[in-house]
């Protein structure tokens, strides 16, 4: 009996960790993309970026809402988003990379979307029904994100000499941050074992295929696999996260507990 209770406790801790990881990915990328609002090169792109950010923030509410429920300490999605500090965030480093130019933002989006799409597709079959339900919802939205970011990576890659140069630079710059998507630790192992999440490495072949196809069509050259930056999943972030939080959490830091 005591052992069963202990096992459940371990599972809940792992579950919470996973929910923070997936929720923080959506939150931080959503916030990053929202920085474009009012600054995009064309009105349609401004609207598309804002819509993408909105979808991601909506998914954040579902993931972090469930994280708070699993944690059982009465914390809401808002509490988790606004009242945690950098080392408590579990997003991968890729999503906190600065936006750079429009091409770099789109390349980051594409590399993330291709993975996000495959991850959510697999999570639709999760043995944890609350996760499967959120994944079912988010998957539809992310399909659109991937469709768009893939299309633009191809068009800009196979565009002018200048757009091609920028897209290749963006790819080479972001590539060392893609390895973390497929990293696994004890948290992943426990949840894979329980059938709650897919083996992270199992998404790699599908991701490689989606990426290789788009890069080839966009006349871009796949970067060499070398050193991969990691750390975000265990709370070790680059300096960029702090700047995001200082803006995103400003109101709650300046006026703790403010509501309207």
């Amino acid at each position, binding site marked *: 009996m005591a052992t069963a209770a202990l096992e459940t406790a371990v599972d809940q801790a792992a579950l919470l960790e996973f929910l923070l990881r997936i929720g923080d990915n959506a939150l931080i990328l959503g916030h990053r993309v929202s920085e474009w609002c009012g600054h995009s090169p064309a009105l*349609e792109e401004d609207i*598309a970026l804002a819509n993408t950010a909105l979808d991601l923030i*909506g998914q954040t509410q579902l993931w972090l809402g469930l994280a708070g429920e699993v944690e059982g300490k009465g914390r809401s999605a808002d509490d988790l988003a606004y009242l945690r500090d950098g080392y408590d965030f579990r997003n991968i480093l890729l999503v906190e990379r600065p936006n750079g130019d429009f091409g770099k933002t789109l390349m980051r989006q594409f590399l993330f979307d291709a993975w996000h799409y495959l991850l959510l597709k697999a999570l639709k079959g999760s043995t944890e029904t609350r996760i499967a*339900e959120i994944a079912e*919802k988010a998957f539809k939205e992310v399909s659109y994100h991937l469709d768009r970011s893939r299309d633009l990576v191809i068009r800009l890659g196979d565009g002018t000499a200048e757009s091609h140069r920028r897209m290749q630079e963006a790819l080479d710059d972001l590539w060392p941050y893609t390895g973390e998507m497929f990293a696994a630790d004890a948290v992943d192992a426990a949840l894979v074992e329980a059938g709650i999440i897919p083996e992270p490495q199992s998404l790699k072949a599908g991701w490689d295929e989606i990426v290789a196809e788009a890069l080839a069509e966009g006349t871009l050259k796949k970067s060499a696999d070398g050193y991969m930056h990691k750390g975000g999943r265990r709370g070790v972030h680059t300096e960029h996260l702090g700047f995001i939080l200082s803006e995103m959490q400003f109101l709650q830091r300046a006026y703790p507990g403010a509501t309207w």
Partner: protein
Amino acid sequence: MDPALRPSLDEVWHWLAEVPDPEIPVISLTDLGIIRNVAWRDDTLVVTVTPTYSGCPATTIINLDIETALAEKGLSKVKLERQLSPAWTTDWISAEGREKLRDYGIAPPIDGTAADGVLMKRVDRLSGRSNLTIACPRCGSTNTEKISQFGSTPCKASYRCTNCLEPFDYFKCI
């Protein structure tokens, strides 16, 4: 509420059919297909609602509108429950709702084409490259082109008619 005084569930559905969508007021919440269930639980009326898009800012307004509409009919004990699965699909928009959208200038989603996991290819086929089936809601021409997969609300894409040259919204399929 005294069971004898309770309105029938049919009546409640009828009331909900009169609550407009806050962003596209020509269609009602029932036309949109987001009211999944209405039931009595003891003396409380439970209305189950599913979101269109997870980040749709209209969701809170929709909940408020439902509560207000039912309160006006004398129902004070109303509980709203969120249901995520099965996820909302544009296939649930009623035939009547589709006509109302068209009259309003929004091309309705093509029936039976909601997301099934092969969205990229299907979107190309149905909307991006061939445009065979998305008709301009103003002149009816099928010579239309996609401007952007995103539009003024999360549920819409931007299109343009190459015959009458009018830009228009297309209610995208999910």
